[in-house]
């Protein structure tokens, strides 16, 4: 047993007799060292630094409360994390092809990137979609596109994640319908819809409907989902985008958990059984540069969520206390200069995600500061995960960093700092996290916090205080030499033609009826999933369905806060 007092004494001695004289002759590189979030870190940590941390209470064993070390008892010893590369571009055929290539190269789960028109709930022939069709993801207008997208992909064998927010209900309906068409029972369908509008208002800005109706529809999806697709993740509560918009790791952690709490409260208000819903909640975090901070963040997140679900919301089933999350390596850290360096960055970030115990992982490709990933680049990204999984030995021991004086101290520190934000938000909502988050959206609280962090970060780079290798230090004169993926300009024309044909060949009366049903349901505060399913089944377009919702609920313009 460590004798803490003796250790403290010894440390003082060391600082006086050993450290100080050394620094006098050879000063440290900086005045002080901080994590990316601004948490000051010492040179060394010792048992005295984690004196307040109790192994059994705060760390424990994987698969058991508070799950700091992982949600499953075996973690990667049982199953390697899912390698799920976010991908999509052009038409459904193009994406189907890329997906098949990725599956062949060893990815173990699919993840869909949609183009901006689809993300914003507009059809490919919408005048505002001009120039954007198929550019940053796959263009989807109707069920027809989904049929092509999933051609040759068995829904009972592969799980698919969908990065989709305002039209999430429509995409879920499409996926479920494909499952019906393939004969896969709905209770066997696996996958995720991102379906997290709160973070859109904070950061990602895929905004269509105002905040309250957006939350209402999300709860509709919860309500319908727990009964109909019990194995499907109905939401991916995201911090990734908050981080990409410039927040610190602590803010990412705090705001994501705050959003999670808001959604749980909204579901409880609707009368949904928390133990039914919780297993279908998932999270999505960023893996950024500060290696240990990221690992600590993931561990703190699990511990916080477990406490929140059990102690605050009274979930009874231990499964309800699990925080399962997907991680993507930080897009905003990729540089256009010397792109091969990005492979190294992604590797470090992926390592942090694995050491942090993620359930699934996307690694960015090295050319993504220039374009969507080329085949070669995405292969390297996938190999990065595979090398970590099969060559490094890291997955063979669960949460190996537990007990590290630094990592346990930092995990605890981040948790404490995150709680501060959460309590602030709770106060804004006068006790309710849901009201607090909605209030924060209204007052611009989240946007201000994030924008200030982003400006600070940029200032540090501009002043040379923060080094970005190849960009403000170690630069070279270079010409871009890597192959870049270009989206065929014909895509827009092809997609519009397909859309026209679908509209001509479908039963337009059935579509009209379904949309009328949807309008009534929306106006009368009923669950919108059943009419959306009906509309989707009859090849209504995303634009038509969103159009009805926009008419009923109005649209939203984000206030400008710089």
């Amino acid at each position: 047993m460590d004798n803490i007092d003796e250790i403290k004494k010894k440390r003082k001695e060391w600082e006086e007799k050993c450290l100080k004289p050394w620094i006098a002759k050879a000063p440290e590189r900086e005045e002080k060292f901080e994590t990316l979030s601004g948490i000051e870190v010492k040179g060394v940590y010792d048992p005295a630094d984690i004196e307040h941390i109790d192994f059994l209470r705060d760390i424990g064993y994987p698969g058991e409360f508070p799950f700091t070390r992982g949600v499953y008892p075996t973690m990667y010893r049982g199953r390697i994390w899912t390698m799920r590369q976010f991908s999509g571009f052009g038409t459904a055929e193009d994406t189907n092809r890329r997906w098949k290539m990725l599956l062949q190269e060893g990815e173990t789960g699919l993840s869909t990137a949609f183009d901006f028109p689809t993300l914003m709930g507009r059809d490919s022939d919408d005048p505002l979609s001009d120039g954007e069709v198929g550019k940053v993801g796959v263009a989807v207008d109707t069920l027809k596109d989904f049929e092509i997208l999933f051609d040759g992909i068995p829904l009972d064998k592969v799980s698919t994640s969908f990065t989709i927010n305002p039209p999430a209900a429509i995409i879920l309906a499409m996926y479920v319908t494909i499952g019906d068409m393939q004969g896969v029972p709905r209770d066997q369908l696996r996958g995720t819809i991102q379906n997290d509008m709160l973070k859109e208002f904070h950061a990602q800005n895929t905004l269509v409907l105002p905040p309250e109706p957006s939350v209402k529809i999300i709860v509709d999806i919860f309500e319908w989902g727990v009964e109909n697709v019990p194995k499907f993740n109905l939401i991916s509560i995201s911090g990734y985008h908050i981080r990409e918009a410039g927040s610190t790791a602590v803010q990412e952690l705090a705001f994501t958990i705050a959003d999670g709490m808001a959604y749980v409260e909204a579901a409880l208000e609707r009368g949904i059984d928390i133990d039914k819903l919780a297993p279908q909640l998932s999270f999505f975090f960023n893996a950024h540069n500060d290696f240990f901070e990221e690992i600590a963040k993931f561990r703190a997140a699990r511990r916080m969520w477990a406490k929140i679900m059990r102690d605050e919301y009274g979930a009874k089933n231990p499964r309800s206390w699990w925080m399962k999350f997907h991680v993507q390596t930080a897009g905003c850290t990729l540089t256009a200069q010397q792109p091969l360096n990005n492979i190294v960055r992604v590797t470090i970030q992926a390592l942090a995600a694995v050491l942090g115990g993620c359930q699934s992982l996307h690694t960015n490709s090295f050319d993504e500061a220039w374009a969507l990933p080329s085949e070669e680049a995405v292969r390297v990204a996938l190999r990065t995960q595979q090398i970590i999984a099969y060559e490094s030995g890291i997955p063979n021991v669960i949460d190996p960093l537990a007990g590290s004086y630094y990592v346990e101290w930092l995990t605890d520190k981040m948790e404490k700092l995150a709680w501060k934000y959460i309590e602030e938000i709770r106060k804004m909502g006068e006790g309710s996290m849901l009201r607090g988050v909605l209030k924060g959206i209204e007052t611009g609280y989240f946007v201000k916090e994030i924008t200030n962090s982003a400006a600070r970060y940029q200032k540090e780079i501009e002043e040379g205080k923060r080094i970005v290798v190849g960009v403000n230090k170690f630069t070279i004169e270079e010409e871009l030499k890597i192959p870049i993926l270009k989206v065929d300009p014909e895509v827009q024309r092809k997609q519009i033609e397909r859309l026209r044909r679908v509209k001509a060949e479908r039963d337009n009366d059935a579509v009209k009826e379904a949309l009328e049903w949807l309008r009534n349901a929306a106006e009368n505060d009923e669950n919108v999933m059943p009419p959306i399913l009906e509309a989707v089944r009859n090849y209504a377009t995303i634009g038509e369905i969103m159009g009805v919702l926009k008419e009923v609920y109005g649209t939203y313009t984000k206030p400008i806060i710089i």
Partner: protein
Amino acid sequence: MKDYNEEEVEELVKGILGGNRRALARAITYVENDYPEGKEILRRIHKNTGKAHIVGLTGFPGVGKSTIVSKLTQEFRKRGKTVGIVAVDPGSPFTGGALLGDRLRMDGFDVSRNLWIDPGVFFRSMSSRGRAGGLAAKTGDVVRLMDAYGFDIVFVETVGAGQSEVDIVEVADTSIVILMPEIGDDIQMNKAGILEIGDIYVVNKADLEGADKTVEWLKSMLKMGEELAKATELTHAAGGKMASGKVFSYETETGWKPPIIKTIADRGKGIKELADAIEKHYKYLKETCLLKERREMRVKRELFELVAEEIKKIIKARMDYGDIVQRVLNNEIDLHTAAEEIVKRLVGA
């Protein structure tokens, strides 16, 4: 000896009076930046001014001015009026830079489309550039250009945080003061003089708690003012005016009782009532000749601002006054005496 480009001035004047937006935009730039062309253009279009209804809006940051202006613009467009808007934002006195105008904030992707590209709407952002003196005159010039162009209504939107912003509102025929519940320091607001100048008061975000309290408080403040004016016989007729140049008590003097209108701007509530009040006030001003009086007051005010600027320029450029300054520094004379001496010297003693 002309220091301006005659061709350009002619072109721009023609453009402004002929409804050419770009000419208006360029003319505003020249006027804002004191180009000689600017002054000349103002000379030539002055006879075309006086037709627009100039409405000033002020209030602390966050009360919802931009939203209200946007909604009002939409409403007046529905009523067949054309609208010009000048949004004055604080600039940094240090760097001189500014982040300007939350342009035409509107609900929704599709609705806002109409205002941004509506030919009957013109939005211009202006930085106050950390200059308190001369701001009202400058804003007045920009408004005059829009007036000459032919807009029915010109909104002047300012941030009400200090004395200079209060001056700007005096550029207007109708002044609207916007508040919101929980605004905090009531005394602060009163000090800034904002409460003395409103022809119409708006309590925005009226769905928030405390809205009715704010309305009641406003009512009592206005009533107090009235009673004070009555008690001290501060009426227009008696020639009594407050330092701001505006008469404190409306009802005694003018018969116009400033309405207090509750709005929830981002939901469009109360906007019609506000638009009605604005039109009513304009009608009132015209019928009672108060319009003429106010404009006279304004002209005098701006005139003196400009005259002061001109005199300052002359003194700085053509006069030796360094010795007077030295005498102040040596404690030989005080500042007031020094000022008098400078004026004497200027007037040609």
